[in-house]
């Protein structure tokens, strides 16, 4: 059933976020530390195990793939509720800081990506699916 896939995804999400909150408390910060990252790792391992033991038939898989396909529309909805007005109203200091920090970090991407050898690019996309 499709709900099994959705439920597995949701359970991994919650378990990861709980782990991230606990880590935040242990480190003494008022923030979630890596919750979504833990959730992603949990999902990778859990679905791998489910597939190997035959507990993830293609129908259940659809429950995860649906949300994955909804990702871009959800990100667009996220963009539509950003505080763009405040971002632009911060005056020259805020604009310079935001701009300079972004550009400086962009420049560092090739440097860091080279640590441990450079990777080949992904093959070009063939079919466009949204």
């Amino acid at each position, binding site marked *: 059933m499709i709900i099994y896939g959705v439920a597995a*995804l949701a359970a991994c999400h919650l378990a990861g976020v709980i782990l991230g909150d606990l880590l*935040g408390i242990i480190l003494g*910060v*008022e*923030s979630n*530390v*890596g919750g*979504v*990252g833990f*959730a*992603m*790792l949990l*999902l*990778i391992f859990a*679905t*791998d195990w489910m597939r190997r033991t035959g507990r993830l038939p293609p129908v259940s898989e659809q429950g995860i793939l649906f*949300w*994955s396909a*909804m*990702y871009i*529309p*959800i*990100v*667009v*909805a*996220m*963009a*539509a*509720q*950003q505080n*763009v*007005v*405040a*971002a*632009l*109203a*911060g*005056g*020259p200091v*805020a*604009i310079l*800081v*935001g*701009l*300079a*920090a*972004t550009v400086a*970090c*962009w420049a*560092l*991407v*090739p440097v*860091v*990506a080279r*640590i*441990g050898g450079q*990777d080949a*690019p*992904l093959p070009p*996309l063939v079919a466009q699916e949204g």
Partner: protein
Amino acid sequence: MQMILDLLAKNGLVFAFVTIGVVMWISYQLSDRLTAGRLHGSAVAIIIGLLLAWIGGTMTGGSKGLADVPLFAGIGLMGGAMLRDLAIVSTAYGVDIREIRKAGVAGAAALALGIVVSFVVGAVIAAAFGYTDAVSMATIGGGAATYIVGPVTGTALGASSDVIALSVAAGLLKAVLVMIGTPLVAPLIGLNNPKSAMAYGGLMGTTSGVAGGLAATDKRLVPYGAMTATFYTGLGCLLGPSVLYLALLAVTGG
């Protein structure tokens, strides 16, 4: 008319699906016809989303963009942290765990470097504009990391509210720039494989920026970038008011 508006507001999330569907369709049409597909449809959609957020924010004076307009409140649920994170987690399905292991060191280095560099850049510019006390410099430096690290650092250190507002604005601008700029700079910085995406997430840190920017570049890179970016804000909140503030204090002498 009023009846229909009430009905749409009551079915907010469902109406949001229609609204975003229309935005996506218009975006892909624009991408095809005006840029011959060179600027990806999802990049156009995100820019339109930000534009709508600006219009909504100007109309209502609220802080949640279009979602502050009662009719479009459903956008707030659809694009809110809950569904956004669920969708981000779902993109990890089918990710190659070997790629993550291979890029682990680069990812960790990216996180440390990303936080420190943003912080230093923010603190130096703050000082250049006359914010020379260590507390203000640390707060604005935190804002250069993300719009959450700034206020958390500022609150912990007792910064003034206008400095905290500045740090939020700087962080928000960074998120917006990353969303729009990623597809444009991707070819220049070699952002085309899982490893560089993990470095990217760790360096930029803003989850919303990285999530949107990578989606508009190549959706297959999203899980790798999101994986590292999700550690950034927490680490920033940890380092900002402590190690980085103390280092600043030592440099400025108080």
